[in-house]
Structures are given as structure tokens and as C-alpha cells.
């Protein structure tokens, strides 16, 4: 029984915003299954009393003073943009509503 189904791969592709082809679904489903089978062995050794490591070097409390630092001007900011209008990045119409809680008045009317 494979660790991952073709449907799951399709779901992952949607989550990751990848418009994968049908052929790729088959290919990736097979490959991911093999890879997951191999990496699952991390479960063999790590016991409950082992703390996880998220950062290789044990630093903490690294801060920056609340001081202005020169950034980009509008022209520089927009220089690489595929499309620009009125000093803003022009993007295709957005279907989903604001996903984040509290993002509040972001959807303004034009």
C-alpha cells in the first residue's frame, strides 16, 4: 500500500499552487511514495525525550533597533514587476477573499 495516493499528490499540488499535468501526477505519486518510504525511518530513532532542533546554532534575542534604514524607491520596487499601474503592482483578479484573520480593511474599493 503506497504511502501517498495520486489524489493526495493532486491536493498537495493545489496547496503548493502548482498546475501539474496528469502525467506529472503519476510520475510524482510514484516518486514521492518511494522517497517517503525512505525518509519515514526518522521515526525509528527519535524518542519522546529528545528535544527537536529548529536552529542549528543556539542563538536567541537577536534584535534590531527601531531605526529607519533606507529602502527602495517606487521605481526600484516596481522594476521587476510583470505589470504596473499607478505606482502599484498590477495583478490578475483575485478570487479568494482575504485569508488572514484581522487583515481588516485591506480590500478597498477603487
Amino acid at each position: 500500500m503506497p504511502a501517498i495516493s495520486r489524489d493526495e499528490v493532486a491536493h498537495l499540488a493545489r496547496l503548493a499552487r502548482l498546475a501539474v499535468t496528469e502525467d506529472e501526477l503519476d510520475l510524482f505519486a510514484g516518486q514521492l511514495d518511494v522517497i517517503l518510504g525512505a525518509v519515514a525511518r526518522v521515526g525509528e530513532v527519535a524518542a519522546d525525550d529528545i528535544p527537536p532542533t529548529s536552529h542549528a546554532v543556539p542563538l536567541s534575542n537577536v534584535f534590531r533597533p527601531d531605526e529607519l534604514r533606507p529602502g527602495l524607491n517606487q521605481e526600484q520596487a516596481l522594476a521587476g514587476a510583470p505589470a504596473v499601474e499607478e505606482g502599484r503592482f498590477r495583478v490578475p483578479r483575485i478570487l479568494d477573499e482575504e485569508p488572514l484573520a484581522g487583515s481588516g480593511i485591506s480590500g478597498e474599493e477603487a
Partner: protein
Amino acid sequence: MTDLTRLTAAELAAGIHSREVSAVEVAQAHLDRIAEVDGDAGRGVHAFLHVAADAALASAALVDEAIGAGSAPASPLAGVPLALKDVFTTIDMPTTAGSKILEGWRPPYDATVTARLRAAGITILGKTNMDEFAMGSSTEHSAYGVTRNPWDGTRVPGGSGGGSASALAAFEAPLSVGTDTGGSIRQPAAFTGTVGVKPTYGGVSRYGLIACASSLDQGGPCARTVLDAALLHEVLAGYDPLDSTSIDAAVPAVVEAARAGASGDLAGLKVGVVRELGGEGYQPGVRASFDAALQLLEKLGAEIVEVSCPHFEYGLAAYYLILPSEVSSNLARFDAMRYGLRVQVADTGSAEEVMAATREAGFGAEVKRRIMLGTYALSSGYYDAYYGQAQKVRTLISRDFAAAFERADVLVSPTAPTTAFPIGDKVDDPLAMYLNDLATIPTNLAGTAAMSVPSGLARDQHGGVELPVGLQIMAPALGEAVMYRVGAAFEAVRDAEQDGPLIRRVREWS
């Protein structure tokens, strides 16, 4: 007349600073060499994705001008040419990270590494080829074609930094900069008979380094000699307030250590051989070269001890969970909204559709594979079993290192299990490709330092020419000085025993 491209960085710097040769002449000689051998993806070494001839000559002219005016050189490497991996942002050159999704992108800012190179007066010749977003061990995953191994044009140069390594081995540059996430500096160094160093995590700023896996990525020096690597190391390393994970401490004195190593012995030093790295799965020629290296280290007076790092065997599995997880998040920003490629979807395509179509078209197969793997590993329901467990393995590997460094000053292993493999050999078998990183990955997971130094040549089962083998020297975090000392001592004794530097045996490119 001496061929300037055959000199080391230290030799070139001495010549430029004493005005025996100009930085412009040195730059021109390397640009000529690039024009001669680099070619394009179909022919030639193809180490470079972009050559900045005018900027390089202008930068070199400034160095000559300053020296002519009697100023002290901006750094010990002022005027020396260098090839920069195309993963560091450069304000005056395109930066692609080997991906189609960033084709033609001109960053509005310089990476800290780029800025340090400029401040040091180093001549940046151009940007080097790499596996897309540093994911790969062969440069076959570059969107811009494979880089060839100068030792044998049918072989890969390793990866992801194959461009930076091949540029050195083909004498297109005496120095280059790479990044090492799981071996991307060290394995190409081993495959091309050059020196590559992965510094302690936090030693070299990551600001402006296009992230592959943030908790593993580390920029570092590549060169043809240990001393050259040390000279470049001191330019690259140092605290950067723009990188929260940058270490605010003095840079280890690696140049001094390299000089001491080259002229001294290793008496009193303990070298640990990691039992778990070097046995099964390692090519016989690689094992033989490693055994010979151990004899040389003993000859230098080092005491060889065996150490065990029992959790290293889980490193590969942990790495291929942590890396894709971070990749899936780091690469989310490539969405066609603000920069880079945008694929149109009819006239009325929504932002969501344009994002998905662009990412599908702009990313290569290996990148997509890892994005999906990471998306899976971080999903609710799987997080604990995969990502969570992988982070625990990371702890265990750090503990293995700590215990081993109790018993030895440095640890050694072959850098890679094989010599350079033929182009196309593993590109369709991701798992076989991943095995390349077996010996290099533990260092990235623990954030410690390691380097690869040429140890000899070996012939693999495919026959053909003899290919380079690398010796990996691993040190504790911020233990670069002892690592460079061992590396330089080994290099000196190896060169003396074997009639000069290994790199001299690379065939002339044609």
C-alpha cells in the same frame, strides 16, 4: 610569459600588489580563458550563466588605480578575479538561482557577500551555474543546461555549485563562492579536484543568498588551494546585522592556520575516522584514496582514532524532510505577482490560476518534487511523524558530533561516496542522486564546519579517465582554524608525495 590563469589567488594578489602585473591584465586573462573554454550549454564547460566583462575590467582598473596612487590594497585579495554562484543577488547582474522563474531578474540590491567582495576589491567575473535553487548534486537540474566537469566533459561536476567548482578546475577563475546546504560546495570540490569550505552556520551572512533551506544554507569559499580558500574565507565571513542567524563573534584566523598547517606537522592532533561514513556504498577507489589519506595524516604526526556517530545514518532521511519543508515555504514567494516570470492564463485568468500556471512552467521537476514533499511533511496530521521527528534526529546528530569532538579535534571521511558520475546517469532516479550527500549532510544538520580537500584520483566502474576524490575534514562550530590547519598540512604533504598539486593533472579542455 606565465599563464596568469594557472596562478593561485595568493600568487596573483602578490603580483598585483607589487605591480608586477595589473589587475586589469589578470581580469582580461581570465575573461579570455572564459571566452575560450566556457562555451554554451551544448559545448564548453558552461560554468558561467553570466559574464560581466565590462564591470570586471572596471572594477580591476579601480584596484590598479588605487595601488598606483600608493594606497594599500583594500584587502589581501584586491584585484583577484572571482566567480560568484548565481544564488547571491547582484545589483548590476541578473540573478536566476538557475531557475527559469527568475530569468532576467535584476535584483535591486546586493547580497552582503557581494558587498563584501566589492569592498575587498575582488573582481567579480560573473555568475556561475547551479542546480535550480541549489537543489541537486550534479547541476543537471539547472534550467540553463548542465555544467561539464573539466576532468571529463561527459561527467557532471557535482552540485549544486557545479559552476563554481568547474570554473576553478577549468582555470576560468582562481576563486569562487558557493553555497552549501547539504554538500553543494564540498561534493563539487571533490568531483573537480578543488577545495571547498562549508563554514560554521552563521559564519557567512545569508542576506541576499536566495534561500534553499534557511536553517541549512551557508555560503563559503571555493579555491584551488587551501590557503586561497582561507584568504577568501576571511573576506566572506563576519557578523552581519541583516542576518538574524549571523554569529556576532571574531572570525576564526584561518589564514594564519592555513599558513601554519602548510609548514608544520600535526603532532598531538587527534583525527577521528567516522565509522559510519566510508563503508558500504562507497566506491572502492574512493575508499583506497581515503585510506591513503589517513596514512599521510599519520605521517604528519596525527593520531588516528575511530569514532562512532550512530545517528548519521538517519541524516539523509532527516535532511530530505527538513530541506523540502523549508523549500516549500521559501519558494512560495515565486508567484508571478511582483517579479520574475508571469505566465498568462487566457485573458481572464485569476491570480490563483496565473500563480499555479507560472509555478508549473517556471520550476523544474526536482524543485516541484521537493515542494510537494515539503508541503506533505508540514501538513497537519503528518507534521509530527515527519518534520517533528526529523528535527529530533537533528538533535541526535548534533549530540553525535559533540561526543565525537570529545575524542578528536577533527573528523574525516570521504567527501562523496563516488567520483563524478556520467551526465544523465542519475537524473531520473532522485533517491540515487540523494545518496551523494550521505557524508556531507550531517555537518549541515548540526551547523558545524567542514571542508573538502583533493586526496587523489580514482577510476570508477565506467572506466575512462581517473577522476578526483575528496577528503572531508569536519570541525566543531567555529572550529575552522584547526580544520584549515589540517587541510593545509594534508595538502602540502599530499602535493610533496605526489609530485605537485592534483589540479595540474586536469586535462587541457578542448
